[in-house]
């Protein structure tokens, strides 16, 4: 908690109240034998207008954390505790109708696969308009006009025709742009994006990524962006939080974390990035696979795969501590890491 307080106070000098703050978030799903923890004590804070990338591999809990921000998990039967505050109000304590006003209105959400995330039997325009009508109480006609403007914002050509299209009639890139338009339709103060470019081709991915970056900066929207791709993170993040086995293991400024990783996991990840040719070098490897969340090892959950593990790693689960200003790491031996090993080698 004091780490959190520190981040809040340092986050952005002029704006003391964070757009988003998460404290002690725990999420568990019902598994074969009892509850399986998926997110284990996540603390986060994000100032207005900033973008934070949650970086992690499959099963690290990054998407679950994102969904927790608008309280989607409880309805899915998950056990959630901890505090999630958006604009100062605790989401987990909200009444159902308050939650409806938060979602889509104050917080926009973009999903990974626009093909399945859009209703296949409704026209794109209607799906955007219904959000606007719901939150702004405008007429349908006005809402459609707004949708039309949003299509210009996300640079969809032939907007009139595309508004009347069904999702399967659009290409992947256009679908994701429409999804962004929908998320932005009520001019939210916080945007949540769950791997929004992963399903797209490289040349389209960069377009959507830069569009999102531009809109976010122009409108001053705070954004939490989930990805597994270091390159994508480097393009869009002000801050990066690296997740492993349901925990944030490293957090800080994007350049700090990506170029000067202090946690052995982040370090290994940057080392795994495929570069150069096989003729020149062997790829750095991270042995093994993430742990089964239902049967976590004692101590640091990364320890079994860690190249730098020592005896105490199997005993103590490390807390996050600063290694530099605005750079936290949850590792007992973070200080042992050689500094400035950019790129991993």
């Amino acid at each position, binding site marked *: 908690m004091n780490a959190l307080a520190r981040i809040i106070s340092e986050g952005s000098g002029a704006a003391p109240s964070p757009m988003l703050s998460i404290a002690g978030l725990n999420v568990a799903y019902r598994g074969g034998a009892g509850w399986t923890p998926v997110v284990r004590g996540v603390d986060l804070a994000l100032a207005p207008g900033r973008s934070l990338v949650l970086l992690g591999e499959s099963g690290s809990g990054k998407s679950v954390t994102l969904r927790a921000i608008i309280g989607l998990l409880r309805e899915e039967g998950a056990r959630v505790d901890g505090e999630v505050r958006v604009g100062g109000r605790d989401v987990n304590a909200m009444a159902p109708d308050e939650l409806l006003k938060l979602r889509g209105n104050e917080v926009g959400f973009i999903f990974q696969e626009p093909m399945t995330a859009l209703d296949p039997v409704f026209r794109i325009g209607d799906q955007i308009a219904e959000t606007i009508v719901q939150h702004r109480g405008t007429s349908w006609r006005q809402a459609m006009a707004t949708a039309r403007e949003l299509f210009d914002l996300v640079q969809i050509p032939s907007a009139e025709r595309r508004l009347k299209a069904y999702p399967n009639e659009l290409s992947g890139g256009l679908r994701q742009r429409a999804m962004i338009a929908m998320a932005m339709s009520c001019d939210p103060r916080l945007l949540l994006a769950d791997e929004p470019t992963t399903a797209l081709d*490289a040349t389209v991915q960069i377009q959507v990524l830069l569009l999102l970056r531009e809109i976010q900066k122009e409108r001053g929207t705070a954004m939490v962006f989930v990805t597994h791709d270091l390159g994508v993170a480097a393009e869009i993040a002000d801050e990066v939080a690296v997740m492993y086995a349901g925990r944030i293991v490293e957090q800080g400024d994007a350049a700090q974390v990506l170029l000067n990783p202090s946690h052995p996991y982040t370090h290994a990840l940057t080392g795994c990035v495929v570069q150069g040719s096989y003729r020149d070098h062997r790829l750095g490897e991270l042995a093994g696979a993430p742990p089964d969340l239902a049967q976590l090892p004692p101590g640091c959950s990364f320890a079994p795969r860690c190249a730098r593990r020592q005896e105490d790693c199997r005993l103590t689960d490390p807390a996050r501590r600063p290694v530099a200003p605005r750079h936290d790491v949850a590792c007992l031996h973070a200080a042992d890491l050689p500094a400035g090993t950019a790129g991993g080698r």
Partner: protein
Amino acid sequence: MSVTFSAMQAPLPPIEDRGGPSQPLLIARGLRKEFRLADGLFGGRTVVHAVDDLSLTVNKGETVGIVGESGCGKSTAARLIAGITPADDGEVVFDGESFWTPRTRIDAERRRAIQMVFQDSASSLNPRMTLTETLAFGPRAHGVPTAVARTYARDLLAAVGLPPSRFAERYPIQLSGGQRQRVNIARALAIRPRLLILDEPVSALDKSVEAQVLNLLVALREELSLSYVFISHDLNVVRYIADRVVVMYLGQVVEEATSAQIFAAPRHPYTRALFASKPSLDPRRRIEAPPLTGDPPDPVNPPSGCRFRTRCPIAEAVCAAAKPPLAAAAPEGEGHKVACWAAQPGSGHSLAPRPMGALQ
């Protein structure tokens, strides 16, 4: 655990080399495949030209990478070469002998020369078979007695880094994605092929596992003197593993060169855009503007002439008129081929080099 392929007693004989070291292992010529979509009222006219006039040569011990975005026909190309999807036209010659033509089928014995590894590691394994059963299937199909094939299967597991004592009797559902992909590689190698076609083998894996599998592939190629056709949308991966690279766009090859050449000096505007779309990993050196706008066009109605011209930053009138041939790029000469009017001397494109005669 210390079992390696070279030390292993394989129950199947290796496929003899016939053509000698300078004979290319695989030559694919003029492969063509159309997919008919919904039929019209009287027979369909909606046709997707999935692969249009693809030619490919793989030398012995070489890895050829095929790069392209979804729908460019790279996976279809893989299945055509392997002879799973019947081609409309073209032929494949393997080590100097015809592998298939549109009229001939491949016999079972020669078929084992080319094997594949697919992207989806889960649907690549029969959920009702244990790993031993899966790995023993191919050898048994080639007449190896079941008991021998099963022992061999355990050795194979060990050779790809999965201790048989713990993995032999498992079912695919009990494995992680990376482990499944190791099994898929072992399965493909079980009947001792000479060419492995890898269709996006690491795309579905986590980054940390991706490196493990790539290292395994590099080591195996060395050890077994294999050749690879490696298909991926990921430039970095192809760059790492391939000796030569083929870039595809909407069913056609737009550029072909050695890995070093193409990454040092890409000639086709699409290849250049593809490279420029790759994030840098450095937050201080971000991409300022996207190199291309829009999505790839619908392969049902590809643009006339050069198929890339609708998104090409340097398209001119000549590009709409005719399809540019895949020809040697002027300065580099040997081995670097590009299908772009801007690189063809005397094509009429304003950026085209002047014809050779005029130069001298």
